[in-house]
């Protein structure tokens, strides 16, 4: 397996990093995160149009650029680094993959090109009130009417669900044969009976919504087949994507903290000259680099079709969860009191680390998944 970024990939990353540094400084992040929407159409369109970010991993036949998960993970890592406020993970990762793996050809053709161009934003309504990413705990069941379906129930922790144009809903269906299967449904964000509540999230850069469905009209977009496996693939790719986003944030925090301790003086010397600071900085380096390796490896392994991918994705997520949170804790600590203030930027990533720690499942949950995949 090739396990190194090519020169083109490195160039793309550098370009993207500079671009996001310019378009999404923390002043801009703070401005957008304070709004209910969490992002701005115009600003996002400018970024996306120039770089084609939503298109990158969508196959060419559906209007995308046809790159792999590795390339998309470069985008996610840089977004995690800059905390760009945009409906990217929801549309281009969660929902695009759900459609790509779970929808019928008709709906892939209908939705994917629009998501690729950025004209359509979409959210995946998967988790319910427990927030568990685990199909067995799902309860929503679609009711079949003559030509269409009706949805009733609650989906929660839906990323960007308050703002997306399109909601893709995962629900059970009672087949004629009496057995149940999982299916995907599309719901218009303005549909009658759909109530969208923006949840108060600690990480203001990651907006979550609770969607309440009362007999909402929905179109089934998956084929007759059960979408469990498609959802599993969507989940794996999303975990790998999130891991890369997380290591981008962790690396940024680590670099900023190192810079701060080098500049800060106490007791007549740079605090970077204290041995304990030096060792802690080294531990932080090790935490982040090991998590980066796992995140990069998982993306490459997915693209290469490696067989142990479920365990690998969980390793990446568990590793990134712990490394990011630990880095954030160390970052606040090494900044001292100033790192605990609102005006200092450290808390923006600290909160992102906390929300990423549990989003798509905690490290404990993923460790159990690893063991299940190894001990069958």
């Amino acid at each position, binding site marked *: 397996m090739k396990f190194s970024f090519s020169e083109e990939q490195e160039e793309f990353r550098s370009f993207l990093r500079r671009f996001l540094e310019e378009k999404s400084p923390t002043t801009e992040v703070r401005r957008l995160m304070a709004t209910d929407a969490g992002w701005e159409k115009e600003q996002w369109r400018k970024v996306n149009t120039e770089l084609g970010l939503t298109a990158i991993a969508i196959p060419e036949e559906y209007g995308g650029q046809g790159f792999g998960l590795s390339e998309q993970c470069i985008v996610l890592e840089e977004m995690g680094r800059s905390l760009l406020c945009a409906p990217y993970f929801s549309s281009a990762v969660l929902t695009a993959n759900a459609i790509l793996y779970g929808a019928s050809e008709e709906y892939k053709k209908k939705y994917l090109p629009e998501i690729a161009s950025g004209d359509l934003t979409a959210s995946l309504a998967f988790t319910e009130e427990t927030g568990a990413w685990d199909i067995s705990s799902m309860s929503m069941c679609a009711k079949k009417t003559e030509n269409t379906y009706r949805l009733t129930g609650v989906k929660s922790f839906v990323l960007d669900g308050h703002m997306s144009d399109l909601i893709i809903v995962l629900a059970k269906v009672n087949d004629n044969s009496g057995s149940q299967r999982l299916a995907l449904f599309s719901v218009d964000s303005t549909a009658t009976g759909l109530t969208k509540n923006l949840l*108060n999230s600690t990480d203001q850069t990651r907006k979550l919504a609770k969607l309440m469905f009362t007999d909402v009209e929905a179109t089934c977009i998956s084929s007759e087949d059960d979408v469990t496996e498609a959802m599993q693939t969507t989940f794996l790719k999303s975990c790998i994507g999130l891991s890369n986003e997380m290591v981008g944030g962790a690396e940024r925090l680590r670099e900023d903290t190192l810079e701060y301790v080098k500049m800060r003086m106490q007791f007549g*010397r740079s605090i970077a000259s204290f041995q304990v600071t030096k060792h802690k900085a080294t531990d932080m380096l090790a935490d982040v680099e090991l998590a980066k390796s796992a995140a990069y490896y998982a993306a490459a392994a997915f693209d290469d079709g490696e067989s142990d991918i479920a365990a690998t994705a969980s390793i990446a997520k568990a590793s990134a969860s712990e490394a990011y949170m630990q880095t954030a804790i160390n970052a606040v*600590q090494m900044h*001292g009191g100033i790192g605990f203030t609102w005006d200092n930027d450290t808390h923006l990533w600290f909160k992102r680390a906390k929300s990423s720690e549990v989003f798509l499942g905690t490290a404990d949950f993923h460790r159990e998944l690893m063991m299940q995949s190894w001990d069958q």
Partner: protein
Amino acid sequence: MSMNEEQVRNEVREWLKENWSPNLDLVEWRLKLADSGWGMANWPAEWYGRDLPVSLVPAIEEEFNKIGALTIPKSGIRMLAAATILNHGSDMHKEKFLKRIITGEDVWCQLFSEPGSGSDLAGATTKAVMVGNKWVVNGQKVWTTSAHKAHWGLLLARTDMDDTKHRGLSYFIIDMNQPGVETQPLMQMNGHASFNQVFLTDAEVLPDFQVGELGDGWQVATTTLMHERRAADSLRSWGQASKGDGPIYDQERVETETTMQPYKWYPQRAGRVDLIMDRAKETGAIKDPAIRQEIAKLMTLHKSAEWTARRARAAQEQGKPQGPEGSLGKLAASNVARAAAKVHTLISGADAMLTGEDSPMDGTIAEILVSFPASSIAGGTDEIQKNIISERVLNMPKETRFDADKPFKDIPRNTVS
């Protein structure tokens, strides 16, 4: 019970019988306490006390509590001010300030920390220069609790840039109600603003508001800091106003609430171990074997820390010299807070992403998750604590000093940030 304690208890009881009434005004009552010396019985008889040993104070307070009589407000910076003034202040200071500290009429704040000197308080760069017959102060202070409500500030300022770092500081009491003093709230990452920044621009201090000798500021500040550490140790017992009906109780409740306002999130900062078992049961997380292990690890740490504190207290009560166990409380508290935040996250799962009313327990859980990092910073970082313990308790060599002997002006320091 020693004979002495019994005598004192009898005296207090008698005095209270004659003087206490819930119908008194709060200040009026406290003036009686000041005059009789029963408010701060361990203070000198000359200054509102009775020269009693501090070990008898709990017995006295117990007698007050028995009949619901109010004591004086032993919370906040005002007690640090009193201790410092009693130790280093002039008679004028004692006369002017102590009584209104006992009555609670004056609010005090502490102006030590600066943006450039957090762990290194003696690196303060705020300057006091004698202009005409007054000190004129310029600089910026930070982490100042209640500065916006304070009447008086305890100020550490540099009076000599050519002397060494520690010798170039002097200590002042500054009037906070003057044009040169501007306070600004400092918001924390948890959304609270418990502290202020204070900007001093040609603020004035009269010469006889200097405490201790010129250049003795660091030494005087040490007294304040020692009392601050003690107060921090007993922070938990502050928050309770006496229970009782009547206007004097209402007055005290208002006072307590105001004083405690900046500390509202402190229980969350400590990690709220008390909520763990109930939360685990209520969410069903207690059935998850991996989470059970994490809960048990946390409880082991928490209980061991609690028993360590009890052990230290028991030894102290026996009059033994302090053992190493007495120095570990703050470090252990940081570890407990960090571990508790982790376990609360595991228990809450996806709910750990939410805040405010969407968060479990109306935001309490969310507040833990963004407050715990302060435990290992406030009042001396874990790193500073470990330096101190290794040097003072374990007698290990001191860190080489790079700032001890040269003039302060030649020591590398932060540019204003």
